């Protein structure tokens, strides 16, 4: 009886709120689905703790957060940390490096992936094509630590890059690439291209193989050669997916991480290797300036959303179709 009353009471409280929902949540349904609810409960709790609590933690960017005072006990300081951030020369240098390497990575990453996918799509030696594909995925699966090690080895004074350049008489003396600040962006981009081209080509290749074969046959009847077929059939067919991936990747221009830069960088190239997230890490955690570090994170998210919305509207206006 007691429980029944409670159920009735709960119904009365809950129902007005839920009137708009398409599927009404009733106690009967909840009872019937208690297994499903129990199955989802631990993961909903996980999401609350590991995904949404950090989001809520953004409030500390507006406080002078002290761990002993907690999220609520710390002093509110408004936009102090943001103003502070915009006055740091190091911040602008980190922003420049992040966007610089981000743009290079996006342009060359996309171009090489599309070119590689086109080349694979055109390959007629099936076995060789499969082998190339399998091998091309390999670098994606190894860690950045291993890749950084390989890059360092390849670009060292006695490495293969110098050996090849010397034997072709393109250079007269070995170059220590990794000690040259001006080549750091290029090295990171190159390493990225080497690691991810094969992997990124998967999606373009999938889009290419779903093109209707009859279109190619019709073009052949009209006397189109391979180039004309690529330019007039294949590329237009994958254009939507290129646009969607572009918009998504542009939003991530500022979220390039810091792994590559941290592993490939050294003291000599430090001012070209500092990126936003490394800056947040060094100041936010390394110097215990949690509020300052969080402010950097928020700035990053705002830029990311701004970039996505801007390029989405550009894509829409120019008739390329948008993501949102």
């Amino acid at each position, binding site marked *: 009886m007691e429980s029944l009353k409670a159920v009735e009471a709960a119904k009365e409280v809950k129902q007005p709120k839920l009137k708009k929902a398409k599927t009404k949540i009733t106690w009967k*349904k909840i009872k019937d*689905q208690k*297994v*499903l*609810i129990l*199955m*989802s409960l*631990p993961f*909903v709790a*996980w*999401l609350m*703790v*590991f*995904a*949404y*609590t*950090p989001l*809520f*933690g*953004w409030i*500390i960017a507006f406080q002078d957060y002290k761990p002993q005072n907690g999220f609520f006990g710390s002093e509110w300081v408004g936009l102090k940390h943001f103003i502070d951030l915009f006055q740091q020369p190091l911040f602008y240098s980190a922003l420049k490096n992040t966007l610089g390497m981000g743009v290079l990575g996006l342009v060359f990453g996309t171009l090489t992936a599309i070119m590689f996918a086109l*080349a*694979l799509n055109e390959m*007629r*030696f*099936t076995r060789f*094509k499969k082998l*190339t*594909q*399998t091998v091309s*995925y*390999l*670098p994606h*699966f*190894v*860690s*950045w*630590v*291993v890749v950084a*090690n*390989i890059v360092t*080895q*390849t670009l060292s004074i006695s490495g*293969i890059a110098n050996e090849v350049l010397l034997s072709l008489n393109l250079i007269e003396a070995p170059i220590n690439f990794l000690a040259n600040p001006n080549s750091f962006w290029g090295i990171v981009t190159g390493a990225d291209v*080497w690691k991810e081209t094969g992997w990124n080509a*998967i*999606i373009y290749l*999938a889009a290419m193989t779903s093109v209707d074969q009859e279109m190619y046959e019709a073009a052949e009847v009209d006397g189109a050669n391979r180039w004309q077929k690529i330019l007039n059939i294949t590329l237009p067919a994958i254009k939507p997916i290129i646009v969607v991936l572009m918009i998504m990747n542009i939003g991530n221009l500022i979220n390039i991480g810091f*792994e590559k830069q941290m592993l490939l960088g*050294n*003291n000599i190239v430090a001012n070209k290797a500092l990126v936003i*997230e490394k800056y947040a*890490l060094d100041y*936010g*955690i390394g110097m215990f300036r949690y509020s300052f570090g*969080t402010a950097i*994170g*928020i700035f*990053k*998210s705002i830029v990311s959303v701004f970039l996505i919305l801007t390029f989405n509207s550009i894509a829409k206006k120019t008739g390329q179709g948008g993501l949102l």
Partner: protein
Amino acid sequence: MELNVLETETEPKQRVKRKKSKIKKITKTDYVLAAFMLIVLVVTLYPFLNVLAISLNDATDTARGGLHIFPRIFTLANYQEVFASNGNLILAFQNSVLRTIIGTVLSTFSCAVLAYVISRKQFVFRKAVTIMLTLTMYISGGLIPSFLVIRELGLINNFAVYIIPSLLSAFNVIIIRSFIDDLPDALEESAKIDGASDFTIFLKIIMPLCMPVLATVALFVAVGQWNSWFDTYLYARSNSDLTTLQYELMKIMDNASSMTSNDVNGINSQQMLSRKTTPESIKMAVTVIATVPILLVYPFLQKYFVSGLTLGAVKS
């Protein structure tokens, strides 16, 4: 059985394509393309083979340079040194294996459970949970708030920090969910009539049918776990019992590049000289050990992850 069903669905298409491509003539362009692909192959594989050759070559001989893809003086001394050292490398290897196994099993299972729950059309909180999950793909609290949460939970210097914070991935859940959505409903309906609970249906019917997609997700998770070094750096640096292989490799690289310390994992250069190895050669041996497990696994799952990735991208 189920696997066969899936394969026969895709096979005829492939056969048709193969026949078509055989009809086409091989022209000059095809040889140019093949040459280009050969260059891609060499550029991709050479660095790995070079590392392997150095790791299998006598260290003092390596220092003379000019080593390419074959060792000149074959030796296993560098590997013996890795496993015989009084440093952390064996422990690091054990931890990497342990976190990969535990993390992969728990994460794959968790993602599968959640995917199953949000694939049930009758589930009352379906929409709410789905939105909660997908939002995490677009917004995240960022590095520092996450660090603070993990610290508050007492996960610093705790093995659980390798497993729990990365338990769920929205992307993986969505891949599995798309797969479940495509399964025929009839199977579980009959089970429901027999009175099986949702959990039993999940374990006995859905899970076995999902093996291809679960293999893909397990591969993604395992690779992530095996390759991870930053969580060790950030959360477990001060507890050397929790060190991992990638983190140790990162430390060796750091030492080698700074050139200030001649002490690598407790092996000083004096000892190395008597043991006929150098930090450089040890580094390469560790690199090989960090790479080989992945090499052994990914080619066999290729078919699955390619379709999984395409599916995931289309859905999201």
